[in-house]
């Protein structure tokens, strides 16, 4: 339920943004592509997984455990685990954000979107919509078996005046001797209108 609400809120923002500036054309617009809506939604975190020589488990902690210690290699309970099989062509995994309040409410990152193709496609789509993505890039054939990706936390604050750290592209290390990597935490501050 929480993920549905999050996706609905996020995609609603995209739909409203897409509706702005409409012309006076009388032809009905084509229905929006729901997959692109998810990929371009504000606060969505994407992981680009190029072809790997090993199976790669992607664990997305629930919102209540989104503040993961980057040094930790333990998968929080209730995480959404999916595995990208070895030799799979480049795929992108999109993780919906957690809205403020879900952290204490025990909500979970119920769903992730998996689609083939990589950073170039999603990045250009995000740029087109004016919503740069928070993107994690994994090296090709990295010696990684498990990656823990906390969802972005969207925090509302009436006093916050700094710019949101969105549009960041982080290249994850090839892990060296390690086989588990935890992605850095992601917090988006959104100024509330109230």
């Amino acid at each position, binding site marked *: 339920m929480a993920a549905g609400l999050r996706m*609905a809120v996020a995609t609603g923002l995209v739909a409203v943004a897409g509706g702005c500036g409409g012309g006076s054309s009388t032809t009905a617009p084509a229905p929006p592509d729901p997959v692109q809506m998810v990929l371009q939604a504000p606060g969505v975190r994407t992981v680009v997984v190029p072809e790997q020589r090993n199976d790669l488990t992607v664990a997305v902690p629930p919102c209540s455990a989104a503040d993961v210690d980057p040094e930790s290699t333990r998968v929080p309970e209730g*995480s959404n685990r999916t595995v990208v099989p070895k030799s799979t062509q480049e795929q992108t995994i999109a993780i919906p954000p957690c809205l403020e309040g879900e952290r204490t409410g025990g909500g979970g990152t*119920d*769903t*992730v979107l998996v689609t*083939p193709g990589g950073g170039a496609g999603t990045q250009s789509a995000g740029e087109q919509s004016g919503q740069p993505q928070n993107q994690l890039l994994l090296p090709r054939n990295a010696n990684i078996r498990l990656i823990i990706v906390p969802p972005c936390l969207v925090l509302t604050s009436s006093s916050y005046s700094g710019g949101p750290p969105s549009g960041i592209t982080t290249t994850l290390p090839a892990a060296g001797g390690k086989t588990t990597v935890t992605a850095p935490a992601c917090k988006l501050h959104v100024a509330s209108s109230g």
Partner: protein
Amino acid sequence: MSPAAADSAAAETVYRPNRVPWIVGGVLLAGFLIGGLLVGGEEVPPPPPPVPNPPESARALSVSTNRERLVVVSPCAEPPRETARQAREGRAPTGATRVLLPEAAGDRTILVPHCQDERGVTASGTASAAVVAASGRQLPEVQGGGLSAGPIVAKSQVILPGGSAASIVVIPPCGTPDATQGRDQLLPLTSEQVVTAPSC
């Protein structure tokens, strides 16, 4: 006309103020004002009414994960038979989505978005996609029956029962909205390694 009168008329012609620019400017100003009012009216449309029964944009796949299962979503406009053939060889055609579901208690629900008519579901045109729910997690239901994950709504379900020996499930996405007509389908129990969901 005397020369003096002619000079006076000529001077009147020369010094009479030209009103044409004022008239053109006034018309343009009025046009901008009216246009601005009309455009300004369009900027605040009334809010759309709530959608009690959102349109179908996906089909659901429910997979028992009493064993590890590989789900392969065919690319748009690709025969699922070809996807199944490649899946047996550990490969997948370009544009396919591959997700391995580890063994865990409970079922996993996957929403497979429909292919779009012209542009395909992603920028690459023919790529498929899958929305994977966490193990044992129920997706929200929508009015009129169905499951949703944000803007993606499924109104029919393909079910792989726990007794199936299949380790690979190939599912083709539907091509048009309402293609499934709300029908649920149970995949047959088979000893085959690969089971393919019927096309829409």
